[in-house]
């Protein structure tokens, strides 16, 4: 709520309305409190209303922890604004804490003077103890810095939903809708998007639909009538590019992108996967869209998943396998096979906190080395990273396009933050997306499975084509013929040819762009899901008059041809990553340009402030 102007909104009868450029709020409660749902509804309403939005869900570890515990807290943050934004916000302007545990784990992210709504009914002795409060914070005075609103949300909800006639457990479950209604009121949002959703979701269980509706409205009306809130807030529509929008999580966008790519190639989509957090939703999303000739295969493990994907690629499908870091570890041997057999497939890695099982529900960018350097032998693979939830759509299409054009596996990196976070996507017309040209070899005369085209790609000859019968495999291939070959010079030649082919991808991707000046004091470099926070930091510094530019790398391997030249135009280079310096190491390894790094491995995205501080430190240290 940085810049606020006060105004009176006419169509509401009471209370002052303060207009804000943006606001970040967070719903936090127990895993059983339905916070993800409340957050999603708030997001959709805001998006439909016309704000730019960016979200950050924060799940607890996979299993539901006992109710009321710190481990069981689930949060959902929404940043919504009247101008374009790239991040869910560093801190929040309003926090809804449904129990003491949620209060404890989230309060540090609320700005001083921020709004804190608490469900007083849950501040029982037991819950306070579970949250490790010695004293009730509502009474201890420790919440003084905030504007605290104590609401008996559970009680109000139970009262409100009586007409629906549900049992008390089911009635209490509606409390997230009550809280949502209250927050809707506070930020002057319409209820209809959520009402429609309730109707379509619970239409078949009228009592539940009614109860949720009643709770939602009760919360809204409480805001309207209670004397609690002196003011309400309004965040106007953003000036987004005209068009129809929808809100997409990264995993949704990725799934839709894959379907689009396959349709654009005129082929079936094969998706072989083994469930793993945070990638599973891609499988779920695709499984629900079988009517687009999507063939999902839930394999017995990650190795089977990629091997089936290789088989499907050989047989001519657009073939994709998706997983997270530990799954990629298991797939590396088979990725080597795909490199040797030169088959087109995409390997999606939705990165999570590592090493090992690590922090499965948290985000991280520490699988870059694994993607580019992590295989046995000289085994180059193109690697692309998506930069925002909606960008997963485009990145997926691009990955498929390159895979098919170059006859190569392509690794597509996203992360837990992108996968579960969401942002508005301007819905494209399918016609805006270029077709993906697939040329299957047809001509038997003089067919050679490893004869290359001008970019180094071999032909894609698929079973069923008479006269093109050929055998491929993981042993070194003879140049041109593809027969097994152990000759020293041939091996060297093939290693070189495979490397050149991947290097040639650089000729088919856009030149690297720089945001801000093309030369100067400091270049920020980022990749993947940190795009938004780094861009925002750059914008802020530039607004403050500093010579700071931003280079966001989309293709990590190969990099666009002009990257080195751009890096050399800046006095200093700061590489910002959610790892301990993997891209930095690789830039130095390739270009011998000393860089500095901003590293964070905490299972969380950067907050803009962290980046700004680091920049200031560097600029100050001139």
């Amino acid at each position: 709520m940085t810049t606020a102007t006060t105004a009176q909104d006419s169509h509401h009868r009471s209370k002052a309305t303060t207009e804000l450029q943006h606001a970040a709020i967070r719903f936090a409660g127990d895993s059983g409190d339905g916070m993800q749902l409340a957050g999603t509804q708030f997001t959709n309403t805001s998006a439909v209303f016309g704000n730019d939005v960016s979200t950050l869900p924060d799940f607890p570890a996979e299993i539901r922890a006992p109710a009321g515990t710190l481990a069981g807290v689930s949060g959902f943050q929404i940043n919504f604004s009247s101008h374009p934004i790239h991040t869910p916000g560093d801190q929040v302007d309003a926090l809804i804490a449904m129990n003491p545990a949620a209060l404890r784990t989230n309060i540090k992210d609320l700005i001083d003077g921020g709004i804190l709504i608490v469900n007083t009914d849950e501040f029982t002795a037991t819950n306070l103890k579970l949250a490790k409060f010695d004293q009730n914070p509502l009474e201890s005075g420790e919440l003084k810095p905030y504007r605290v609103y104590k609401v008996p949300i559970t009680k109000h909800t139970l009262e409100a939903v009586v007409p629906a006639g549900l049992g008390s457990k089911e009635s209490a479950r509606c409390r997230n809708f009550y809280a949502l209604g209250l927050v809707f009121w506070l930020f002057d949002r319409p209820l209809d998007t959520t009402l429609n959703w309730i109707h379509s979701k619970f239409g078949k269980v009228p009592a539940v639909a009614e109860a949720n509706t009643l709770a939602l409205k009760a919360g809204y009306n409480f805001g309207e009538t209670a004397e609690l809130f002196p003011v309400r807030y309004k965040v106007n529509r953003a000036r987004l590019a005209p068009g129809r929008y929808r809100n997409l999580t990264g995993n949704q966008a990725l799934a839709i992108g894959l379907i689009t790519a396959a349709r654009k190639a005129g082929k079936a989509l094969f998706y072989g996967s083994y469930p793993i957090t945070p990638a599973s939703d891609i499988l779920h999303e695709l499984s629900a869209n079988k009517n687009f000739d999507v063939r999902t295969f839930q394999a017995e493990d990650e190795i089977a998943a990629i091997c089936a994907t290789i088989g499907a690629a050989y047989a001519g499908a657009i073939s994709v396998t998706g997983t997270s870091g530990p799954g990629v570890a298991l797939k590396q041997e088979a990725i080597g096979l795909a490199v040797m057999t030169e088959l087109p497939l995409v390997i999606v890695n939705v990165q999570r906190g590592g090493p090992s099982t690590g922090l499965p529900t948290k985000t991280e960018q520490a699988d870059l080395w694994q993607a580019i350097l992590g295989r046995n032998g000289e085994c180059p693979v193109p690697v692309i990273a998506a930069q925002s939830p909606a960008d997963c759509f485009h990145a997926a299409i691009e990955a498929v396009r390159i895979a098919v054009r170059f006859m190569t596996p392509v690794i597509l990196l996203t992360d837990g933050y992108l996968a579960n976070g969401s942002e508005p996507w301007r819905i494209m017309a399918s016609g805006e997306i270029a077709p993906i040209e697939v040329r299957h070899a047809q001509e038997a005369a003089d067919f050679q499975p490893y004869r290359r085209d001008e970019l180094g790609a071999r032909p894609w000859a698929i079973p069923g084509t008479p006269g093109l019968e050929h055998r491929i495999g993981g042993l070194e291939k003879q140049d041109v013929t593809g027969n097994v070959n152990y000759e020293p010079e041939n091996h060297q030649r093939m290693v070189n040819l495979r490397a050149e082919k991947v290097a040639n991808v650089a000729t088919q991707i856009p030149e690297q762009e720089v945001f801000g000046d093309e030369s100067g004091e400091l270049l920020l470099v980022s990749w993947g899901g940190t795009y938004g926070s780094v861009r925002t930091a750059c914008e802020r510094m530039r607004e403050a008059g500093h010579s700071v530019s931003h280079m966001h790398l989309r293709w990590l391997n190969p990099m666009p041809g002009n990257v080195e030249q751009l890096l050399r135009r800046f006095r200093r280079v700061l590489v910002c990553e959610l790892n301990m310096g993997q891209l930095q190491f690789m830039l130095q390894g390739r270009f011998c340009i000393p860089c500095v790094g901003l590293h964070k491995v905490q299972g969380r995205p950067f907050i803009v402030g962290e980046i700004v501080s680091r920049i200031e430190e560097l600029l100050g240290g001139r």
Partner: protein
Amino acid sequence: MSQVKTLTVKDFKSDQEVRWCPGCGDYAILNQMQKVFAELGLSRENTVFVSGIGCSSRFPYYMSTYGVHGIHGRAPAIATGVKIANPGLNVWVITGDGDGLSIGGNHLLHTIRRNVNLKIILFNNRIYGLTKGQYSPTSEFGKKTKSTPFGSIDYPMHPISVAIGAEVTFVARCVDVDVKYQQYVLKRAAEHQGTAFVEIYQDCNVYNHEAFDYASDRQVRDDHVLYLEHGKPMIFGKERNKGIRLNGTHPEVVELGSGITADDLLIHDERAPEPTLAYLLSRMRHPEFPEPMGVYRAIQLPTYENLLVDQIAAVSQKLGPRSLDDLFNEGDTWVVD
């Protein structure tokens, strides 16, 4: 899968030099496969041979069909992908006792239980041939090999029992050198709709020579194997004077004559819906029992890829024709102008 111009055995030979050790049992199997393909009038272009790694897994290079020489143990998974992408293809998996049962055991199991329409041929030589002679999951207890100089302490696993544990729809066995019978078994496998799992006893001439002599040596084999025939009593022996009788849930070897007739014997039923009989047969092992050859089990169940195709069709029907634009515009949308 058939085509107008029928192909000859030679048409199924690729241009690659066959590189097994002289005397290796793999040669016989390759020859029978080519013969069976010619005889069944199968096509080259619609056939894919998929293998893992091992001596046996070089097989695809020698067939003039499509082929993938995969990585160790993963052939069933690769083949499943081929089949899902193009259910019309005729897909064969070639694997070894190490490839298919050691590193690849799980893929085999899951492919079998899904009933993917693949023909899986396991070359069982009870040894790791390609890596020069370590014991395999089918090697006998106590066997001395490079990695067990004092004898193996692993109890072997029995491929057919394992396959039946996973409730395979077709399972059979034969011996490399018994070429006629092998052709019969391969043809039966070729004709099965669903996963067909075939174990072939294969001689590794170099690292485990004569491991299957009891079942391949013409002098003795008739007393050591039992040729299964659907609907027929289980009789065996050079003189065909011995049989298998059921005692509770246990088989026992009996001599025919002196009161025991064919009517007392177990009747083979490859189509029994319950696989218990097949399991019982898989437990009959040399030297206590004659080892059953032929088709243990052959039942019909919808195949994985047909179920998949049908489901896609049904869903498409149900949801009606939907364009990419429909997909893009799903859910809550709003317009900015």
